[in-house]
């Protein structure tokens, strides 16, 4: 049977639309950026108008995606299952899919850099999850695993306010981008080709981002044959009502114990002169202090104290008014504000050792060659072939 002809206009149109949505641009804005009339963008996106190489480079620059984003399939045959799971999730909307596209290309570039530099970090985390049958199993397993992993990562009892950096240094690919007006807080992916990858929506408050990262970290470490999971506001709501599956309860238990170890809470409260015998002294001020100390949301801190029996579920009411204030909070980062720090470092290292060109460096950093030249000069990076 003859091989099916690859339909470039259609494929390119879909990619361009996806990248445009990810940046939050309308067709008019994109038309201005690339110097084409608005109807042309509409025709290109629907695959009715072909584009030439020069226009493609213009789209690549305007949409801050490498050429490979537009030209290559996002995943290879045989590696597609985790990606399919992600795309098929009911929690991923059309708008969110464009973020997933962007995330996948970045993860691919990240993996390429690791391979180029001889770093074998495809599966950096241990696999520790045990079989769970009850809610209690899930909670205990989550807590035990969190303690063990803190030990492996040498975190002691110190608060982990910037978990993304800790995970990055452990070899996990962490992508933090804003998806405004999305119910998705984050998602994770485990694949043979891409390794462990976590995405967190930076449109949520920083504390929520940290909890999302820890929750997805829990999935990566404990779920057997983990492929892809999505954490949304809806799920978290259901969890509070104990309606979610055990595996999600376990990931939440892990996240809570990882970010707020029991011994660390006791230690922090002891510094305030409090113990389990004086729990009646706990006030909203104390909880605010603890949540700042551990870098978590007020709500997460409250639930952790309830689960550790420092306060009762009934007591929750008297602390709960604080939550109203949190509802309006959003972070301020733009969709493409930053690339992972480790990724940037690997890109510069690959450039320095002459494993990639300046043009490729520009592509990987999602900038044009002019900006790349400026950075190379500013950082005084001389290329020395290995």
């Amino acid at each position, binding site marked *: 049977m003859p091989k099916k002809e690859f339909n470039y206009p259609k494929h390119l149109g879909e990619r361009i639309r996806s990248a445009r949505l990810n940046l939050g641009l309308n067709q008019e804005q994109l038309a201005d950026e690339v110097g084409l009339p608005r109807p042309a963008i509409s025709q290109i996106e629907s695959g009715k108008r072909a584009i030439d190489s*020069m226009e493609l480079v213009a789209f690549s620059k305007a949409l801050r995606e490498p050429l490979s984003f537009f030209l290559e399939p996002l995943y290879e045959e045989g590696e597609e299952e985790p990606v399919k799971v992600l795309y098929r999730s009911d929690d991923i909307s059309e708008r969110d899919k464009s973020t997933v596209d962007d995330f996948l290309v970045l993860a691919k570039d990240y993996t390429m850099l690791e391979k180029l530099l001889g770093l074998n970090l495809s599966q950096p985390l241990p696999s520790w999850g045990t079989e769970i049958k009850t809610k209690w199993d899930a909670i205990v397993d989550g807590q035990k695993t969190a303690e063990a992993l803190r030990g492996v990562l040498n975190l002691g009892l110190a608060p982990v306010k910037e978990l993304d950096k800790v995970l990055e240094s452990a070899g996990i690919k962490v992508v933090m981008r804003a998806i405004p007006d999305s119910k998705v807080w984050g998602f994770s992916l485990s694949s043979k080709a891409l390794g462990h990858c976590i995405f967190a929506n930076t449109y949520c408050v920083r504390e929520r981002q940290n909890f999302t990262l820890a929750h997805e970290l829990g999935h990566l470490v404990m779920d057997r044959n983990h492929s892809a999971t999505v954490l949304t506001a809806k799920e978290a709501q259901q969890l509070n009502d104990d309606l979610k599956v055990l595996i999600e309860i376990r990931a939440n238990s892990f996240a809570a114990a990882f970010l707020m170890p029991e011994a660390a809470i006791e230690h922090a409260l002891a510094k305030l002169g409090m113990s389990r015998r004086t729990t009646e002294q706990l006030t909203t001020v104390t909880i605010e202090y603890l949540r700042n100390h551990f870098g978590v949301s007020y709500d997460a801190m409250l639930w952790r104290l309830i689960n550790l029996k420092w306060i009762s579920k009934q007591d929750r009411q008297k602390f709960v008014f604080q939550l109203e204030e949190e509802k309006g909070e959003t972070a301020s980062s733009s969709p493409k504000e930053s690339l992972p720090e480790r990724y940037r470092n690997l890109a510069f290292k690959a450039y320095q050792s002459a494993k990639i060109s300046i*043009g490729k460096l520009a*592509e990987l950093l999602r900038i044009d*060659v*002019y900006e790349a030249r400026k950075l190379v000069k500013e950082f005084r990076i001389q290329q*020395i072939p290995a």
Partner: protein
Amino acid sequence: MSIAFPSDDIIISDANVLINFLDSGHFELLIKLFQGKLHITDTVRAEIKQHNSELDKAIEEGKVKVHKVPIEQVAHLAKSFENFQAGEASCFVLAKEKGWRIGTDDGAAKVFIRKELGMHYIFTTFDVLLKAVRLGIIKKTEVESVVDEMEKKANFFYGEEDYKKFSSELKKS
């Protein structure tokens, strides 16, 4: 075994060599030196387009020739040359096909060209300046200020060893 040498006077340039001359205000030097035998691909042109209209003028006047790279080939290049940007890769392919030198200062490109085509295919910004001095297009005494302007205006950043070699060649010429 015979070594294939590239054509001496034709160059296919990547974006960086072009930027050095365009942004420093010395593009005319490059034009004079190659006299219509300066080639680029349309992907390289697109890199420059938004920043410089001088290149468009030179193309219109036939002083720079642009080679179209079909989308399908760009896709192929992006996949086959994952360490390079498609514009750079398209230069390698054309150079090999036509037997032209490649204008590049990039370390990764030099490693690749040396291995795949041979060191004679590499033509750097410093090589351009040396050739321009030898042909009397610029004076030896002017070269330092040209390099200085490339550094300041075009963010030209070069290796110390390359500069030493260039200075020594310049003295001899």
